[in-house]
Structures are given as C-alpha cells and as structure tokens.
C-alpha cells in the first residue's frame, strides 16, 4: 500500500513513506512536522493549505503524494523568516492583518506568486487574483491593504 516518496520542502529533501493517495498536506503536517499549512476544507475551496509547487500556488489538501513528483515545495515557513521576511509577510505585520490568522497560508502564498508575476497590479486585479480564498474573520480590507503595500515594496 505505502510507497517511498522524496519530498523537497523549503530546500531540504525528506523521505516519506505513505499511501500514494494521501494528500501532500498530511505529509507536510504529520510526517515532516510542519505546522503550516492548515487543513480548512480538504476540498480546495478555501486555501488554508496552500503551498507552492515549483512556484505555483497549490492546494495541498487535494494534491496526492503520487502527483508531487520532484516538484520543489515551498510553505509559508519557507517563504521568508523574521530576519529575512517576504514583502507580504512584512506587510501583513505592518498592516496588522489578523483576526485568527488560520487562513494566512492561502492569502500570502497565492499573493506571493501573483505579485512575483504581476507588477503594479490594480485593486481589481488583486481581488481577481485572490478570488475564492476564504477569510471567515472578515479581514479582507486589511488583507487588500497588505497586498497593496507588498506590491509597492516589490516595485
């Protein structure tokens, strides 16, 4: 039933033995001990589990291990650190975005890929890029301010 997988996560390679149908989310959380991303829906509807696979925002809750292959996986923890923050992480702190912060993975990881590819986006373009992501606490206004702040930082 189980197979050996080699996962390249945040620049380190890890061996995982698991059911090939198991979503990547559980390998990251349970086998590798990464507390982010989070389980929100298991249906790719909310974004709380978002990671980058070769730079592409991907819902790890519906991505079977068998489909990960050699992709380079980056999680929120790998995006930046307190010493060397990604502009979105710095902007989130500056704008004081949270309520609960459980949804952060989806917004930051999705916006990070968007801002990498799209410079000086308009408000409408930012909203369209983030559509579908959920924030139940209603912090949308602060999220939009943070993404705009990060966009300005990223030129």
């Amino acid at each position: 039933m189980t197979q050996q997988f080699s996962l390249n996560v945040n620049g380190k390679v890890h061996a995982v033995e698991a059911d090939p149908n198991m979503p990547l989310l559980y390998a990251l959380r349970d086998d590798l001990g990464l507390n982010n991303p989070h389980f929100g829906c298991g249906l790719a509807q909310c974004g709380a589990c978002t990671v980058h696979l070769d730079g592409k925002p991907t819902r790890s809750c519906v991505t079977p291990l068998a489909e990960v292959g050699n992709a380079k996986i980056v999680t929120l923890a790998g995006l930046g650190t307190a010493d060397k923050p990604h502009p979105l992480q710095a902007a989130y702190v500056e704008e004081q975005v949270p309520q609960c912060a459980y949804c952060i993975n989806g917004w930051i990881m999705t916006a990070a890929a968007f801002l990498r590819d799209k410079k000086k986006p308009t408000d409408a373009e930012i909203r369209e890029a983030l559509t579908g992501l959920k924030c139940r606490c209603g912090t949308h206004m602060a999220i939009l301010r943070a993404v705009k702040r990060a966009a300005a930082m990223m030129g």
Partner: protein
Amino acid sequence: MTKHEKSAAFSRRALLKAGGALVISIGAPIAFEDVCAADAATAVVTKPALTPDQLSSYIAVNAGGSVSVYFGKMDMGQGLSVAIRQMVAEELDVAFKDTKIFIGDTATSVNQGGASGSTGVQEGGHQMRMAAAEARRVLVEMAADKLGVPADQLTVTDGVVHAKSDATKKISYAQLIGGQFFNVHLDWNGKYGNPLYAPGKANPKDPKDHTIVGQPIPRDDIAPKVFAQTNFAMDVKVPGMVHGRMIRPAVAGAVPVKVDDGSIKDIPSAKVVWDKGFLGVVADKEWDAIKAARQLKVEWSQVAPPFPNQASLYDHIRQAPTRKREEGKPVGNVDDAFKSAARVIEAEYQWPFQSHARMGPGCALVEIKDGKVTCWTGTQKAHFVQTGLAATLGVQQDSVRVIWTSGPGSYGRSDADDAAMDAAVLAKAVGKPVRVQYMREEGTGWDPKAPASIHQARAALDASGNVIAYDYLSKGFSRIDVNTNGSEPKDTLAGQNLGVDIKSGDGFGLPGDSYGFVNKRTAWETIAPLLDRASPLRTAHMRDPVGPQIHFASESFIDEVAAALNADPVEFRLRYVKDPRDVAVIQAAAEKAGWQSRPSPRKDQSGDKVSGRGIAYAQRGPSRVAVIAEVDVDRSTGKIWARKFTVAHDCGQIINPNGLRHAIENNIVQATSRTLWEEVKFDRKNVTSVEWRTYPILDVTEAPEQIDIVLINHPEIAPSGAGEASSRPVPAAIANAVFDATGVRIRRAPLSPGNVKSALS
C-alpha cells in the same frame, strides 16, 4: 470552610515572616502572633492558591522585573491581549514592553468567563485594571517601608518606585518582589465567569493621567503567525498521540445499530469507538483515520426525517407553540394606542439559520496520563471546558487542565467545545492521547447554529404622522438551545450522543435602542428545537448572538416608518432617539458620510444598475454604533455590492484605537457576508450546507471598496464591548440602502442574488 478560606489558611501556614526574612514552615504548629506576622507579608516565595481572591492569580513580577499577566479570558484574534496588557501596564506604571500575558490556561488563570459577549475589556479588563492598581499600591507601600519615605510621597516610573522629591531614593519592583508572589487578598464577589470581580483597596488612575491606555500599540502575535511559528490547537502534538474522526448520520437523529469493524480491517491500526449514538474511529496516522471514517460500514436506526421543508421554515416558526416569552420594560399602553391610530404600519422579517463555518473545523487534543487530563483546544471558554471534561470523564475538576490554544476563528459557541468532548471520550476509550479534527462537512453541517427567527413589528401613527405606539416581537429558536459553553455534557454532541438527559435553554433578545415612543412594547418568544438531541440545527451563540437578526428587523422597520412618512431616515431617527450618545453616533456617521437629507427611495435612477444609501444604528450593552451603507444593486442579476460603509462607534474609553478599528472593520465585513450570502440549507433529513459551495460567504471580489470609521472616545466612561457591536446594524443598513436604490423592501435575509432578483421582479 470555603475554598477561599482554605487557601488563605494554607498561605499563612506555609509562609511566616520573621525579622524581615522569609521563613518557610510547613506543617508546624502556628502561634497566633505568627499568623498576624504572616498576614503582614505581602511577598511570598510559594505561590498562593489559584483562587480569584488572590492578587497572585492575576499578576506576578518576575525576577528580572518583567510583569506576567494571567488572564481568564481569551483573545480570539481581535488583539484583546494587547489591550489587557495596556490596562495593566498603565495601572502598574511599567513599560508596556515589560508585560507578558498568559491567557486561557486553567493552570495559570482563574475563570473570568472566557471569550464571552465582548466582555474582554468591559469585564475582564476591568478586573485586571483593579488588580494592577492594587499591585501598585502594595508595591508602593513595600517601597515606603524599605526607603523610609511615606507612600504618598512616592511615585513610580517604569517599574521603579522613587521619592517624588528625590529620584535617587528608589527601589525597583524587581527588588521588592521579583521572583516572589503577592500574598494579597482581594475582595472577591464570590462569582466566577464574566461577573467575577475582585478589587483591592486601590482606586485605578484618573483617565486623564493615562499614557499607555489609548495608544495604538501594535500586536506582537502577528509576526510569529506570518512566519509559521505559532502552534494553533490543530498543530499540537504529544508523544503516542493518535488521530480520531467522528462519524455522523446521514439522517439527523439516527443512531448506529450495527457497526462492521471488519470493513476497516485493511487500514493499519484503525479502531472503532462506539457507545450508543457516539461513533468514531482512531488510527495512528491521520490519513488512516480519515479513510477509516469514510470506509466504515454502519447501519443506522430508521428515524422519521426530523426537519420541515426549508420553504416552510418561517411558517413553522410562526405556528410553533411558544416555549418562553419575555418582554422588555413596557412603556404606556400599546394596545389602547393602536385603537386610536390614524394609520398602522406593520411588517414581518425573516432570518435564516447561520453557521459559524470557521476556517478550520473543530479540533482538540486530549491526553489522559497518570490520573491527569490535559486538553489543548481553541475553545472560547477553557475553564468551562475543564468542568465539562471532568463531567464527561467522571474525574475531579482539579485533575483536568485545559490549555487554550489559538483556533481557526471563533465567534461564539462553535464546534470547538464539541471537539474537546469527543476527543476526551475517544482518548478514554483507547487509552492514548487522541487528536480529533472534524472534517469540513462537520464544521459547517454539524456546528451549533445561529438561530433562525421571524420578527413582527408594527407602529401606530396619529393623523399628524407622529408615532404613538410601537410593538415589536421576535420569535425563533433559542440562542441557548445548547448553552454558551461546554461545561455540561448535555450541551455537547458527545454528551447528547451518549444519552445524557438534555435540557434546552431559552433565550433570545430585544432591540437595543433609545427610541422614546410614548407607548412601546418589545418582546421575544422562543420555540422548541426541530430535533431535540444531537441535532445539526441545534442553536447557540454566534457573533453578537441574535443581534444581527433582531436589528435587521427593528432598524429596517424604523426605515419603513420613515419612508411611509416621507421623512429622511436620519432625521426621523433623531426625532425619537433619546440617548445623547446614540444621537452622537448617528450624527457622526451622517456627517462623515456626507449624508444629504431626503426621504427614501431615490427617484432619480433608471436602468438595471442603481445605487442607494441606508442607515441603521443600535446599542449593544453600553456600546452604540451607527452604520451607513452605500450599495450598488444590479437589478438584472439581483447582485448587491456593499461598496462603502461609514461607521460611528462609541464604546466608552478606547484602550487601543488600532485594535478597535480592526475589530470594527472585520465585524462590518463578516456581517455583510451574513447579510448578503449566508443561509444554512437543509432538507427533511439533514443540513445540506456542508462546505463553502453550499454555504457561500463573501468573496474578496465583493469586499467593500471603503470602510470609514469614526471613533468617539469617552475616556471618562468605562470601556465597553467592541468585539461584536458593529455587526448588528449592518444587515438593516444594507437592506435600507437596497430600498433606497430600488424602492423594494427586502424583509428576508440573506439578500442573495436569487432572493433579491425574485423580490425585485
């Protein structure tokens, strides 16, 4: 002997002061003079019992001089922790940065009620302020003794007590008590939870002297979260932990009658836990637990579908027998006034069941080890969960420790408490620590719901257009069908599934306003739940419990009366609102929004795309909020964009304006979501809103363009709740704006495209 007296006796026996040195003497006979001497010791090396009458239960000065604050409420993400630290730092005269706060751990804090009714600052902060003021008083007296300077000639700067006239005569808090504990009794009122109050002898500062309170100090819990360094309740792991998942029936009310363990025998370590209606699985690996829960073959009891057709929900509420009725304080004689009315206006409004639908479904970890129970949970009320776990497991409360850990959002009595009890039952059954996380369909489909309701309002007008009587009735499911906390098994799914006796509570609410109608009657009535046990439509508190629904109706209705009289909605409200602070928020919002006086609806628009503006206001306890919504309506699709809000907010003294602005803004957006989209769907058998497609919420593309907030600060008035108040005027402000835009009054929430389009056609 009460617990309170016992703890005092213990501290006397343990700690005797002799010649300025602390001597520990345990179990020795105590002479009367020793007891008196011990009473004088305000610093002790052994922490007094964790009881509400001990100053050490709230505040400690550490060896290095930093201050630890122990708080029995929780910060559910609105920044309350910062506000509490500000209040404590202010009273103690220590730097804000030198404070640390520990919240919601039953081992370090007393039961101050948890997160509850936006009382974090109002009640919890009040207590912490009094405790901090007392700590300062005691420390200054200790310093007076050491320095030989009278206490009234001393002052405190950043944790250093010094003579007002000679700054070199000084001693720090750290030198006075650092690393030891206060041995100071407070005048506890004997109550736990929100009403807990235990002041000392000190009076808090005059607000005009505040330098820390009122500052926009940023939160320091955000950086760890964006750098993935924070453990949420979902992230806690302990050695030997296994994973649990619950299994719920397809037809609500059914219970398992046959469970085929063999159907999951191919899944490593998977095990069934079945007791009456309680059915779960555990496995060593999380994915195996999920697979086992999906794969397990279960035969369920045959039960009649418990629910009415959703289309007849409001008929059901209208016709259901009233279980309890309560009235507000009556004014005049409403019935007589209606007999003399020249004109009567009446309307009925309807509000659906709504789900907390938290970002992550309920999750908890319970470990039972060496006679001790430990639970990590995102509950709002750790101390009540402690009681509930003790009852569920049949153990003493003091052998249970509940550690609140950040959860995935929290807006009231969610499924967090259910998850804690389920985890405890599973952990006891398998003899291992069990982490339960619900699946999405449980998080939306099986969480306690905000109650559905109808609201009937009528107004009597005289020939001159004066309101001579007002009559308002809410009738709906109870906001405490299951209680606001999980302190009793009967209020949790685990308890109900295990067959405990159940008792549905009755509670609703009244409009919060100061309309001075000469004859006025407000009332509420509750009805029985549709299914009395383990129901996915059991009802409980959800952010501003019953506030949005009550004021959707009451403030829409005020607008209807204004429109009937061809009056401007702001001017009409100001004609009748009596409270000066209410008047002030209405005027402040209108001024900020550039409100132009005219009656609704607008008469200058044609075509499919129309826009309008609407106002609503409400009190919530001592707080009051006015909200003006400006909306765009597409008549062809029924889609509403709540484009701009202007909010005027008065919650007395503002502790932290930044935190307050965020709390308000998020309330506005969440309430907009509830107004425009949210409705729990169900069929005869079960709830059918089970994820984000079947329970849509506001998308970021639909978020407002702008939210302007006017904060009205009253440093002289005690701070009151701000965590929920701004939610309640939002539904009516939007509905009133839609009326202004379209001339059509929509009296049923949500104002979703389908509902709006059919209302407009």
